[in-house]
């Protein structure tokens, strides 16, 4: 490892040379954890060997994050024991866990938005020389870590100004930085594209060789085959099985996870492109992140928008919804140019935008599901009359939507914050169902959503599309984009690089347009 050798004052135990394969790093026995109203884990056993990647797999709400939170010291289990390198241990804080070499990248980020990338990486274990911050050492360490990961980030950039995917990279870099002996990654690739994810996988391979134990949570089955040694499947807080990754097929994994088999992940959508619904006309943003982009989406089609992190694909969705200042060009909704797009105006025109970062921009975490789902539609006659709420109708329609999306637990009065990540995402999506919508802009709609729920969400998109909605699907999940979209644009450095239709829309074609063309020229 690079970087923090000098800084190992708070020294996580370095992995010994001999500590490879077969050495048990961690063992949990009969772990239980209870939250008000929910038994999140009951009697779960888990172990981690040095030099392995152990994947935790399970539906939304199965208890995966709860388990790693216990391992990372966020909260103690109600019951059960934990041993670290053979020693029984009680963790009393994440800090304690870090000191013992357990580092985690959580599903929800823990970065300080007002600090720079490098300050975040070294937060809590700054390099000091005689009590004074050694800025150059910090800068050097950060550069080295980012280089190791091949993440292209500016160490001086303020974290708050980064996109969700970029913040995810900072989170990963921060966890690596501490030289852990156990590394926990909770859906680290949720908003990364192939490219960044590949860099992460390469790094994981190297860390394995160095004898680290890695706990990895993902909902993307293809990743399991790529990196996992063993897989532990949880369902409803209980251990279903721990299996060697090599011995188990994808269908079998899904079966273990949900207790039944799924025929097809992606539905066949019957596209009937009709009237033009949204168009951008030579759109450029004042931020410079999008330049001269013209795209269009028609009723009854799903149009994909692909591109690497930072290629500007998210910004287009945001600009249409009025969240990014427009420099040049125009946004048109159904042939009508919109001079100043704003969320209010766009909602009134039947445009819904589903943001990628549900916690930041999507949800009012401490309020119940009901209030969150109806929020965007309260002004409509179905939900209120003369400003007075129609509580009964609200309850009825929200419960109906929650049922359609298979929200679990199906209790719309529960605080959103107490739902698992995937179920929170359903709440955000549900908001689009409370009103008449003609245009959906989905930015990473299945981030952190389990396979079963993905099937439901895709089915939901199919239904919308076949009923004549126009769908713009911004996604870094390439298989998802390829299967759902009938047409796709590929973005590169803020511009449209290609438009791929029908048979031309293939993985190779999309990937070929992701990167700089310098390769071709050579």
């Amino acid at each position, binding site marked *: 490892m690079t970087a923090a050798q000098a800084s190992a004052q708070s020294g996580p135990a370095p992995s010994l040379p001999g500590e490879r394969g077969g050495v048990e790093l961690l063992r949990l026995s009969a772990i239980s954890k*209870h939250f008000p109203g929910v038994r999140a884990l009951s009697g779960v056993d888990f172990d981690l060997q040095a030099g392995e990647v152990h994947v935790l797999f399970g539906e939304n709400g199965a208890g995966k994050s709860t388990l790693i939170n216990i391992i990372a010291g966020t909260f103690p289990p109600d019951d059960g024991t934990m041993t670290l390198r053979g020693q029984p241990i009680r963790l009393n804080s994440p800090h304690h866990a870090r000191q013992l070499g357990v580092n985690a990248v959580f599903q929800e980020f823990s970065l300080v938005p007002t600090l720079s990338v490098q300050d975040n990486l070294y937060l809590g274990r700054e390099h000091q020389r005689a009590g004074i911050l050694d800025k150059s050492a910090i800068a050097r360490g950060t550069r080295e870590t980012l280089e190791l990961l091949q993440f292209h980030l500016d160490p001086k950039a303020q974290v708050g100004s980064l996109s969700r995917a970029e913040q995810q990279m900072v989170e990963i870099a921060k966890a690596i930085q501490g030289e852990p002996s156990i590394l926990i990654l909770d859906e680290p690739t949720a908003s990364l594209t192939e490219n960044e994810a590949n860099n992460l996988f390469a790094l994981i391979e190297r860390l394995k060789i160095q004898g680290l134990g890695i706990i990895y949570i993902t909902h993307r089955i293809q990743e399991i085959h790529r990196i996992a040694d063993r897989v532990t499947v949880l369902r409803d807080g209980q251990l279903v099985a721990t299996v060697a990754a090599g011995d188990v097929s994808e269908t079998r994994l899904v079966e273990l996870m949900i207790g039944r088999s799924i025929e097809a992940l992606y539905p066949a959508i019957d596209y009937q492109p009709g009237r033009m619904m949204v168009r951008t006309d030579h759109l450029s943003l004042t931020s410079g992140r999008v330049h001269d982009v013209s795209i269009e989406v028609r009723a009854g089609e799903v149009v994909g928008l692909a591109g690497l992190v930072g290629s500007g694909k998210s910004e287009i969705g945001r600009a249409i*919804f009025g969240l990014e200042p427009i420099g040049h060009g125009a946004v048109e909704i159904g042939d009508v140019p919109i001079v100043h797009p704003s969320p209010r105006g766009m*909602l009134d025109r039947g445009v819904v935008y589903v943001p990628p970062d549900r916690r930041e921009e999507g949800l009012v*975490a401490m309020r119940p599901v009901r209030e969150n789902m109806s*929020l*965007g539609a309260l002004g409509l006659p179905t939900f209120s009359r003369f400003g007075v709420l129609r509580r009964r109708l609200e309850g009825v329609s929200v419960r109906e939507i929650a049922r359609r999306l298979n929200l679990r637990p199906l209790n719309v009065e529960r605080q959103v914050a107490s739902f698992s990540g995937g179920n929170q995402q359903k709440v955000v999506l549900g908001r689009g169902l409370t009103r008449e919508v003609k245009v959906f802009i989905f930015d990473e709609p299945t981030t952190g959503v389990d396979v079963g729920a993905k099937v439901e969400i895709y089915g939901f998109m199919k239904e919308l599309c076949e009923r004549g909605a126009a769908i713009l699907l911004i996604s870094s999940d390439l298989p998802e984009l390829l299967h759902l979209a009938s047409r796709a644009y590929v973005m590169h450095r803020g511009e449209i690089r290609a438009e791929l239709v029908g048979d031309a829309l293939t993985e190779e074609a999309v990937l070929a347009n992701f990167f700089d063309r310098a390769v071709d020229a050579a």
Partner: protein
Amino acid sequence: MVTKRLEGEIAPSGGPSAVVRSVFSTVGILPLLLVLAIVFFAVQEPRFYAAANITNVFRQSTYLIIVTLGQALVLISGGFDLSVGAVIAVTSVVSARFMSRYYAGNPDGEVTSVIVGIAAGLFVGLVFGLVNGTGVARFKVSPFIMTLGMASVGSGFALYYTGGSPVSGMPPLFTREIGTGRVFEVPIPVLFAIAAIIAVIFLVSATTWGRYLYAIGGNMKAAFLSGIPVGAYTASVYVLCSLLAALAGILLTARVSSGEPNLGASFPLQSITAAVVGGVSLRGGEGRIIGAVLGALFITILTNGMNLIRIESYVQEIAIGVILILAVIIDRLRDRWRV
């Protein structure tokens, strides 16, 4: 105990501490405090539960309740208002001055002069609210700085406007009827407070306005993306809070029969304390109006009781400060226990 999770059901949690926790996290610690305070003072001082004192407590509490209603709304929206005291002071002197001037000119126009005075007072509230609201919502000044600034502007103005001395000469209709009068044995200020409570509870729980308030306080970005005009709603909360403070100021003026430039100084702290004790979160998005009202009642009972057992007012201030800090700590704990 192995309770298999049932969808949507609240499973009984293990142990008595879990029961205590779940009670705390739903109703907060306030009912317990209220009972403790009442028992404590009743034991210490029999006069405390005399009928006369009970009416007295209710009447005393009305002003704080009305101000706390507004304060709670602002807290729920994610801000707070330190200028409520200054609004009371300015309202007091302005309404008293307008009323007495008009009354001096038209000794027969008692009713009109009262209306003129009240209108002038409410206008003061409106102006403060608009300034606070515009500063916070439009120019993104932090609520702390904005309302602290306006508090200074207000108290300075009240002293400047009156030269520091009280304004007298208001018609008896105002000082006697509104200040100390009763309808069916109920003091008139209490009626105002009840009306205000009902109106605010209705606003918060039954209207879109109330719902948006919680959403804005809980996550402003999410509210904005849901098409809520966040700025206008935020501003409207400050206006309503100042109007309620102005109402309290007018009622207090009637009660003390003069326009006092020093009126209301204790209200910012007390109203925030009352709301927080009542379970309104300082971080916005959470809290119930009825809790805030009970909180105000609690603070009043405490003050009244401490007066009866002759605790010095300086010591009382210490007590209020300690309670505020404790309430915030409990608020945090409640959050943790919910996890």
